[in-house]
């Protein structure tokens, strides 16, 4: 998917600017205005990271999505604030995209579990690859994330795995972070 540019509004309505990124084989997006920072990181990092006086919970969505863990460098997107501050680990940042708000669709009807917490909808964007002679030109789905929903599920997952002595994961200070 070529995720730069604009997915225009048919009626001239409001546009949302999204930052798009890849986790596994799926391309996701969040509102670009929600991004506080983007940093190089290691996929093995856990815990929290301080940034400008706030603590951001490191969240690897692959744990929620039942994907195998990665063993390589990735990017951390710092989003939100307060108790919803999250450092989302993604494999690759693809670019920014403007999307007409009216083009956001609900998830297909049978996505009725935790997916409703994690994803707020999807947008079909043009498959620019078709212009280059590959790809079928049908368009591709860009899935819009709910970082707060992911964080709630992630905290529940961590709580279920916490040792009996109540020890929490260490801060992710030092190596592995490159602002």
């Amino acid at each position, binding site marked *: 998917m070529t995720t730069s540019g604009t997915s225009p509004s048919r009626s001239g309505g409001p546009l949302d600017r999204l930052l798009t990124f890849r986790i*596994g*084989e*799926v391309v996701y997006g969040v509102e670009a205005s929600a991004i506080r920072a983007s940093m190089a990181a290691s996929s093995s990092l856990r815990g929290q990271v301080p940034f400008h006086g706030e603590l951001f919970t490191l969240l690897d969505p692959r744990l*929620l*999505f*039942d*994907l195998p863990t990665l063993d390589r460098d990735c990017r951390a997107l710092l989003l939100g604030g307060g108790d919803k501050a999250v450092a989302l680990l993604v494999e690759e940042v693809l670019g920014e995209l403007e999307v007409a708000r009216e083009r956001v*669709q609900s*998830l*297909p*009807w*049978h*996505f*009725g*579990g*935790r*997916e409703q917490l*994690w*994803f707020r909808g*999807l947008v*079909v964007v043009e498959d620019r690859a078709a212009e280059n002679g590959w790809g*079928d030109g*049908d*368009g*591709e*789905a860009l*899935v819009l994330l709910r970082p707060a929903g992911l964080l709630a599920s992630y905290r529940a997952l961590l709580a279920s795995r916490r040792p009996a002595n109540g020890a929490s994961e260490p801060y992710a200070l030092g190596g592995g972070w490159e602002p």
Partner: protein
Amino acid sequence: MKRMAATRRADAGRELLSFRLGDRLLALPCRRVVRVARITSIVPLPSDLPYNLGIVVHRGVAAGLLDLAGLLDGERGQARAPTLPSLVIFARFPRGVAGFPVDELLDVEGPETIGKAPAPESPAFEVLDLDALESTG
């Protein structure tokens, strides 16, 4: 699901699209079929549902993709992703359209065959009840 010979049906005038899924011979009322297409890619969106294969985009429209065999068998294991490209029937369920990969389209059974004795070699089809299928899932 009702197992019956395709040529004996209580509601005369209903056409059925028959297809093969593995060893199963299945049929679907044509009025519930939105389109049949060959898809070349699937978006494997994570899901709690075991028979959920993800999302497919065809001609600019996104629809969910289901593992029909898993849904029919009530299996709770991993959904079986199809080999791509894959033939998909997009059907109208009560809550919306969804697609499911099939192995082979067979025929459209028209009203002219209703009431006639089936030929000995005619296979029996399972006629899908999409309303019941959706509530099962």
